[in-house]
């Protein structure tokens, strides 16, 4: 008797067209102009970035566009020490949640030009954009964030956004 079949491979490949939606389309188009555009909730006044067209707390549509700063505060971070396939940067490197000035929710991005051991909560950082001619409708228009050298933000200033 031949050996039983223990494993089969069934390759699957499907292609999808992503719909960014109205709110994220505005956000992505603004990135191509070197701007960060969020939306303010008309009810609780929180500013969301990237905007999703709704306030998940109040369940109301968000329409008002708000430009936020490309500077902010590291609210939390992780040091990536483990290599994985397709990794663009050599570990160790720092991925951080950055609360942009004027926003109420942190975005997740790379933190560079800093020794991993020096990354910390409260660190003030700024966006490093790609050159003007390389800007496009993608979060990759911001290459990474780097420390500004300003004094650290007080814990109380971001404790609601962890």
């Amino acid at each position, binding site marked *: 008797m031949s050996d039983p079949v223990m494993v089969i491979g069934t390759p699957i490949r499907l*292609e999808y067209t992503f719909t960014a939606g109205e709110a994220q389309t505005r956000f992505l188009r603004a990135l191509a102009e070197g701007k960060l555009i969020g939306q303010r909730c008309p009810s609780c006044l929180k500013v969301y970035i990237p905007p999703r067209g*709704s306030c998940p707390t109040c*369940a109301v549509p968000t329409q008002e566009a708000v430009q936020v700063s490309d500077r902010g505060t590291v609210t939390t971070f992780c040091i990536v020490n483990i290599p994985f396939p397709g990794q663009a940067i050599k570990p160790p490197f720092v991925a951080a949640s950055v609360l942009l000035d004027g926003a109420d929710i942190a975005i997740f991005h790379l933190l560079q030009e800093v020794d991993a051991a020096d990354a910390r909560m409260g660190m003030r950082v700024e966006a490093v954009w790609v050159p003007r001619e390389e800007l496009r409708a993608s979060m990759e228009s911001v290459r990474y964030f780097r420390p500004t050298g300003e004094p650290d933000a007080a814990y109380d200033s971001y404790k609601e956004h962890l």
Partner: protein
Amino acid sequence: MRDVAVVSFAQSPYVRNDTQRNEVEILMPVISDAIERSGIPRKEIGFTVSGSCDYLAGQPFAFVSALDAVGAWPPIRESHVEMDGAWALYEAWVQIQCGDVDSALIYAFGKSSLGDLRDVMTLQLDPYCVAPLWPDSISVAALQARAMLDAGRCTEGDMAEIAARSRRDGQSNAAAQLTGDFDTGALLREPYVVSPLRRHDCPPISDGAAAVVLAAGDLARRVSKRPAWISGIDHRIEPASLGVRDLTQSPSTKLAGERAGAVGVTLDVAELHAPFTHQELILREALGLGAGVRINPSGGALAANAVMVAGLARIGEAAVRIIDGSANRALAHATSGPCLQQNLVCVMEARL
């Protein structure tokens, strides 16, 4: 058993490809509309449950981001089924039967346009021996249609008449997508998509969303003059393997219909979730629906078929005919899986 009723229904317009709005943006006005019509304040709704399929968006946990449309803070009691919203409604009905909540919001969404739907649907088949052959959803339905024709249970003309009636009825449904007056003779001169199915035998590909609010007993009576009381609801499933089933019959629909109390009662309306024309004939026979029952006044799934939404929409469409006084008892049916594998039957009635 607690008395539970549908008190409101809302749906988006169904379109072939909504390139402007993402799922949350489609859902938000639908959910707000259903809640507003229910007369129950959003914060007082006891349970929230959704039905959707991450394979449609091609993103794991896509259903979690849809919660942005709901307002889930402070934390709400919430659940999800990776199924048509009709089964989410079943879960909500069970929750209300358990007695700890009196109301529930059920919503479903589907952007069927984002991938190649015929291939996406292949992934619901047996992953070892069937899916690797990539039979697409229309080819699988065509096997069933061929079995119906070979058994002498219908003709291609019968099928074309169902398509023409559905599209004609869809004209009075503002949400419907594929509507109009079509001559069956002209339809029958069209080429096959997959023999014996022509384009009109197949559902349109639709993007859209729907929402229903359920309420129990006194709450339903307080918020609605004429709630659509659920007198019976049941769902049954058949084997996944197509080869062990008689595809011309739907024993799961028959059993669910019996358990839901659809037999031996006068039904004014039936909303059947039959994405393919020949499937309506199988369902009508399984449920014993005679000529006196108005079938799919909304146009049904042949006029709009947002995947994961169309079953819940059948319940909503049937319910609104009781709520608006045009029917006293209505049957709604939802299906899932290839060739009517799984079926849910919900019977609703007015109580004066």
